[in-house]
């Protein structure tokens, strides 16, 4: 991953060294094991070494059912997992609960990830969902201070924010969580090995020179932020670094329009930094429902975020005073203390030995898997961001859980990707489940769209321009709710229950039959009586016919 070499600039010297260090011992070591450790059957072709009966374990019968052709053999582990993030930990624990012997390897802990640093808990716990949400909580307070004034609360002085308190508390919490993750692994009987795992052959993993054989190997190494290679990109930070800055940005440029960009824009804006967002398109959040994109953009603007639309970064220039300038296709803006790139993430598939064993990758470096998360090498599996399916923690959990079932519970299970809800913790936040209006029209043609755009009770008192937008998309033919979108306070909490309803294939009539909880924002979703619009395919021939007839009849 050439482009990401510039990413962890805070630790780049160590990073380079470690990279070099781990590259050299691996090859000789693995070849050594390959030829000189006959007890590691995994290093050899499975068919050439029929095992003795004594090597048959409880699990082999189970494993056999998934791969009848392979005779039982002795491995160090039934499952060796590379990467102890959400998906890896879930798969390992569940596999162990099903009776498998499991090991998982993970890089040493660091807040910023690299080829040589990671930590148990993975992106979600250490540099994703969790720290992000903690910072969202912190930054949201400035809005709450404003709101509270409308409810009679007074401040002698404008509340000031101390960045270092927040970051110290955040780091203490993620360390605690990493500890919990380690304990859950331990309690489940999973062996945790610290180091960089690399695949040597279909049944062998090398961790910093130590060789382990396994009946199955799971790759769950996740993804990492990607910064495009433009002049001065070494001055840019990514989301890893942004979650652990030594001081709060005074003025920050955020390049990108995805969920990470809008989340960090909200965080720094709430903490009173001057925030500029640069997006290539006209709107943020490509792929989301168009109306949601418009709405969240407006709300963020009202909270003080400055958007630079249709601007692509071309270079970063560092001035003599240390401040940064961002040159785009439209001009140059000066005076940034930080420039953050939220320009996508890439799967961590470099230096894993994948090419050597013949695991197929997609164009953007993700591991290709089938519906059961199996790669092109039958004994190697992959879950989570490294497969670039739906890059969400709960999806990785689902994939990890399903895989454990498939491999060790004799229950081949496909993860199910329909109606997966998700949230963007922008301010205000977004949550959604099912199809966007655009997707729904494409797929179903005739849809009824119900929308609500209202000022919540809290805003009428606070006097702030906060609003809530909701959209319900109904298939006209079946009356099923096929999409649900919301932007506004509490959206992520609200949508979860609705996701159960959408997943269960419930209809608009079912929504209507449900009594509201008053007074809440959520009750609006069960009290949408008239469609805002009915989208219909161009009139069918039959209909056109009848129109012609009636016209003729006049």
């Amino acid at each position, binding site marked *: 991953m050439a482009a990401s070499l510039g990413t962890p600039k805070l630790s780049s010297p160590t990073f380079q060294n470690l990279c070099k260090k781990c590259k050299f011992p691996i090859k000789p070591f693995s070849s050594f094991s390959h030829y000189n450790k006959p007890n590691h059957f995994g290093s050899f072709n499975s068919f050439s070494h029929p095992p003795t009966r004594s090597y048959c374990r409880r699990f082999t019968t189970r494993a056999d059912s998934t791969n009848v052709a392979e005779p039982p053999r002795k491995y160090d582990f039934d499952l060796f997992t590379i990467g102890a993030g959400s998906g890896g930990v879930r798969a390992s624990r569940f596999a162990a609960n099903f009776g498998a012997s499991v090991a998982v390897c993970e890089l040493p802990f660091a807040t910023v990830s690299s080829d040589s640093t990671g930590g148990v808990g993975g992106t979600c716990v250490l540099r994703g*969902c*969790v720290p992000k*949400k*903690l910072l969202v*909580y*912190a930054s949201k*307070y400035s809005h*709450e201070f404003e*709101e*509270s004034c*409308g*409810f*009679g*609360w*007074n401040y*002698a002085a404008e*509340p*000031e924010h*101390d*960045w*270092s*308190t*927040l970051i110290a*508390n*955040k780091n203490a*919490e993620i360390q605690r969580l990493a500890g919990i993750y380690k304990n859950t692994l331990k309690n489940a009987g999973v062996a945790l090995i610290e180091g960089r795992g690399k695949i040597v052959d279909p049944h062998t993993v090398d961790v910093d020179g130590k060789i382990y054989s396994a009946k199955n190997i799971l790759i769950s190494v996740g993804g990492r932020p990607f910064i495009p290679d433009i002049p001065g990109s070494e001055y840019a930070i990514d989301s890893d670094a942004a979650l652990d800055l030594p001081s709060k940005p005074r003025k920050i440029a955020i390049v990108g329009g995805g969920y990470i960009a809008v989340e960090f824009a909200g965080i720094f804006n709430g903490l009173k930094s001057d925030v500029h967002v640069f997006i290539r398109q006209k709107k943020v959040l490509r792929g989301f429902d168009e109306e949601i994109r418009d709405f969240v953009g407006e709300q963020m603007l009202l909270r003080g975020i400055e958007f630079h639309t249709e601007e692509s970064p071309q270079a970063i220039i560092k001035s003599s005073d240390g401040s940064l300038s961002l040159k785009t296709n439209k001009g140059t803006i000066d005076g940034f203390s930080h420039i953050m790139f939220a320009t996508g993430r890439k799967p961590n598939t470099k230096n894993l030995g994948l090419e050597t064993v013949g695991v197929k990758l997609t164009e953007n470096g993700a591991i290709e898997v089938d519906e059961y998360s199996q790669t092109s090498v039958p004994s190697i599996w992959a879950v989570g961001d490294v497969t670039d399916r739906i890059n969400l*923690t*709960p999806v990785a959990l689902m994939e990890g859980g399903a895989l454990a079932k498939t491999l060790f519970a004799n229950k081949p299970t496909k993860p199910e990707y329909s*109606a*997966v*809800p998700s*949230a963007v913790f922008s301010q205000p936040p977004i949550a959604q489940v099912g199809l966007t209006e655009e997707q729904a029209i494409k797929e179903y043609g005739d849809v009824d769209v119900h929308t609500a755009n209202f000022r919540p*009770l*809290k805003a009428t*008192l606070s006097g702030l321009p906060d609003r809530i937008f909701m959209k319900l998309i109904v298939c006209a033919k079946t009356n099923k709710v096929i999409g649900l979108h919301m932007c506004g306070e509490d959206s*992520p*909490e*609200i*949508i*979860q*229950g*609705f*996701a*159960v*309803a959408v*997943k*269960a294939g*419930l209809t608009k009539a*079912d*929504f209507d*039959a*449900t*009594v509201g*909880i*008053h*007074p*809440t*924002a*959520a009750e609006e979703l*069960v009290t949408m009586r008239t469609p805002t619009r009915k989208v219909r395919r161009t009139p069918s021939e039959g209909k056109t016919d009848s129109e012609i007839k009636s016209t003729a009849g006049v």
Partner: protein
Amino acid sequence: MARKMLIDGEKGNPNGEETHYDFDLFVIGAGSGGVRASRFSAQYGAKVGICELPFHPVSSEVIGGVGGTCVIRGCVPKKILVYGASFGPELQDARSFGWELNERLDFDWKKLLHKKTEEILRLNGIYKRLLANSGVKLFEGEGKVVGPNEVEVTQLDGTKIGYSAKHILIATGSRAQRLPIPGQELAITSDEALSLEELPKRAVVLGAGYIAVEFASIWRGMGATVDLFYRKELPLRGFDDEMRAVVARNLEGRGINLHPNTNLTELVRTEDGIKVRTDHGEELMADVVLFATGRAPNTKRLNLEAVGVELDKIGAVKVDEYSQTNVPSIWAIGDATNRMNLTPVALMEGGYFAKTVFGGEPTKPDHTNVPSAVFCIPPLSVVGLSEEQATEQANGDVLVFTSTFNPMKNTISGRQEKTFMKLVVDSETDKVLGASMCGPDAPEIMQGIAIALKCGATKAQFDSTVGIHPSAAEEFVTLRSVTRRIAAGKPKTNL
């Protein structure tokens, strides 16, 4: 349909000699249910009149206001005060997130009160406009039923006007009751509590229902010392016992002094405030004593007995499943019928009344799986059966799934308060019979869950739903292991 409905245009007058009435429908009471029924009836083409008492935040026999309890002295102003009160502890928590605030935060009750009144006046205006826009004629004054098709409105100046109507709908709601103890006149009800001139420093709340715990939370959040007295071991009778215990623990954790198994016996005015005596012989001083000891239907002055409309023991109008009283032309909805006293239920009853009588589609309101919320701090929200009810009603064993967790926000703030969630599942059908939660955002979270329950969703369907991470709500779809299994017909011992 088993019984003959009184459907518009279907009335027993086969020769088309329809009696002429001033109105197709006359509604007494313009609260949630009455306004909904009027508007919907008008939309079905009915000619509708509605009467309501003049506006005032505190209700009585002769004052009320368009919007009713919910808008003027219930849900809305209550929620506004809950918002106001929630900022107190919320702002304390901000410090751990790095915010530097003054040691003492200043709260201006008068400002909030003023803004609350502004807001309910605005909503009162919106309700009036809603009625006008749907062509409903609004009369200000006190309505009485004087015959099966006759109402009389006493206007503000005392003059009385009679109107005839094909159908009469009673939607007069209910009012807070006081406990008959010596000095009871010194106490206030929730009406006054929403409009106090001064914020009490010492508040005593009597009652165990949702109103009691909500006001206890409001005053505590605003900084008052609060003592909550109730007769039972736990507050919120009728809710899931475990949830009741959680609420009690949280109230206590937030600094409210709980006095279970205790009644008030006397209130005495003193120079230092109101002296409160309990049946345990305790005495304490209070600036405000709130009686949250139940509400009674507003049926006394409606002259219902005279026209033969049956009332129940507590004075609620008796109705059938279609909200029809024993006098076929008279109907009743909302709190006046004391079925399930919630605004959205009154809306449902009002809407279905209109559909039944004027929409040509007889529709029974369905009172099962109605979700509800208690806006104590943190709030409680439930839908479906409690564990106790489920144990009684389910055929097979009942599976109880619970989750107690520290909300993510508390990991930084250090607030010692756990969120608690529960799903009650029928082991035979896998149907989720009940869901409950106590913790931040519970009411918002429960709404979607309610749809699932309403439609008989199974635990497997919950499990197949992917979580939204990180949220509290995701716990509802990730409850994997059974906390306990209760054998059929063996109710759990009371907490």
